């Protein structure tokens, strides 16, 4: 298996603050990887390094055996935040097509990249959204549009920053299934930042767990045990499993989101319904 990402003694952070240190891992071609960890543990920092938007403090990070550089066409990126609100009246397809032509100067020929944009929307089952304004789309629909944008140049690596946030439990499952189909059918690699491991467990190849300034990686079954996490993070950690195999991690930064799934789900679906109306 060829390595897509190789990380060697990598320390990441800013001039005044180290986010995590001495990370060692690699991601092979075609793997579906979840990046987990509490807020502020440095998950997005890893993405910034991969996108070439920041540099390591120490050590080495390689992507496709090269130092990361900005504007890498082999990467598709779905961000956590976007500038879309209910007032944004531009068609979804106009945004998707920017993924292909948006970095070029000049006004371009009207409709260039339009065909590819429609195809990309079709590939994620979102062709019906092509001519809807971004501002009226629901959270899940917007995620599909952003995924279509990320996929438009046929990238080899997908980086998804919390795509499941703000989705209710049904749409969460649908979106995970969609990403899994994309990864398997195109034989590409995906890194997905998430707060909740459970909807991802059936499809994951590997977990990158970032917490307390450390980065651990392995198969879900290796990482998600009380013993592993405790020895990694040097704090009391308990991994609980319910009868359905769902996991709750307790002990790593208790203020964070690794609490029971049910309360979370209720909150999310409530929020979603509200949004939809």
């Amino acid at each position, binding site marked *: 298996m060829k390595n897509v990402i190789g990380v060697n003694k990598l320390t990441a952070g800013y001039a005044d603050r180290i986010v995590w240190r001495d990370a060692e891992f690699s991601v092979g071609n075609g793997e579906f990887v979840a990046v987990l960890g509490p807020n502020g543990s440095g998950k997005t920092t890893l993405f910034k390094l991969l*996108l070439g*938007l920041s540099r390591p403090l120490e050590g080495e990070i390689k992507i496709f055996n090269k130092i990361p550089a*900005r*504007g*890498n066409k082999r*990467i598709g*990126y*779905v*961000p*956590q*935040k*976007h*500038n*879309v*609100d209910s*007032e*944004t*009246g*531009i*068609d979804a397809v*106009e*945004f998707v097509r*920017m*993924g292909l*032509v*948006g*970095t*070029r*100067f*000049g*006004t*371009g020929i*009207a409709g260039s990249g339009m065909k590819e944009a429609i195809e990309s929307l079709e590939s994620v089952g979102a062709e019906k959204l092509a*001519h*809807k*304004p*971004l501002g*009226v*789309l*629901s959270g899940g*629909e917007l995620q599909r549009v*952003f995924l279509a*944008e*990320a996929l438009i140049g046929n990238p080899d690596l997908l*980086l998804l920053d919390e795509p499941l946030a703000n989705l209710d439990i049904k749409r969460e499952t649908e979106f995970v299934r969609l990403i899994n189909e994309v990864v398997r059918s195109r034989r590409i690699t995906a890194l997905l930042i998430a707060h909740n491991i459970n909807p991802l467990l059936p499809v994951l190849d590997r977990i990158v767990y970032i917490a307390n300034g450390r980065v651990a990686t392995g198969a879900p079954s290796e990482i998600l045990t009380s013993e592993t996490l405790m020895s990694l993070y040097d704090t009391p950690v308990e991994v609980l499993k319910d009868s359905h195999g769902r996991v709750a991690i307790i002990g790593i930064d208790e203020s964070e989101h690794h609490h029971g799934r049910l309360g979370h789900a209720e909150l999310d679906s409530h929020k979603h319904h509200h949004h*939809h*109306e």
Partner: protein
Amino acid sequence: MLQYAFMRHAFEAGTIVAIVAGIVGYFVVLRKSAFAAHALSHIGFAGAAGAVLAGLNPIIGLLTFTTSGGIAISTLGRKIVNRDTQIGIVLAFMLGLGVLFISLYTGYATEAYSILFGEILGISASDVLVTLIVSMALIAAMAVIYRPLLFSSLSEDVAEARGISIFWFGIIFMILVAVATSIAVQVVGVLLIFALMVTPAATAQRLSRRPAQGIIITAIIALLATWIGLFISFYLPYPVSFFITTITFLGYSAVRLYENVKPRPSLVKVAES
């Protein structure tokens, strides 16, 4: 009415300004930078008042102040969101400076009035020429950065990941807004700048979902409002700026009213699905 030189100049300058303000305004609205445009016009007020005090052409003061203000705003707050505080701080200071200059200037009070509310009927042939040259440069610059600007307006993060420098595009865009504001002040003045920079674009974005089309509609609305405003003001003894602002406001209100009576089909569909 076009036999009068002042009316010809007014129509010439008004036409150029409406097109430029429309194009730049479309992005101002899309990027939710209306407050920044508002601040820039107030910064321009200080510049214009200062220029008048120093015995210079107000347009020089306008351009200098708005451009430096635009650069300051975009460097102080690097991301689009949460810039309001920084902008407000600069705005208040500049408005205060403008008040000082006006009080120091013991000449005609009409100068202050025309900066604040526009004096399109007083535009000279050389002003028209300056406006034309500046506007052509501005439109050329907008055409060059059109696609990256549109991309980063919809998602800064995705655009940045694709290799666009959000920082530099933010600065370049703010400079273009500054220049557009400076020339638009001649027509509608500092206080009424929104009539040309924001209202037509906000109206157009409710009428078209394609950016290129939206920009053209924006320019047409601004153009019609300016022309009709000038035409009416030739026969009625009221300020042109009043007519322009009223026409754009009525246009926006009509579109909103129409939407309420008949909601956009896309809205209905999504709600059902």
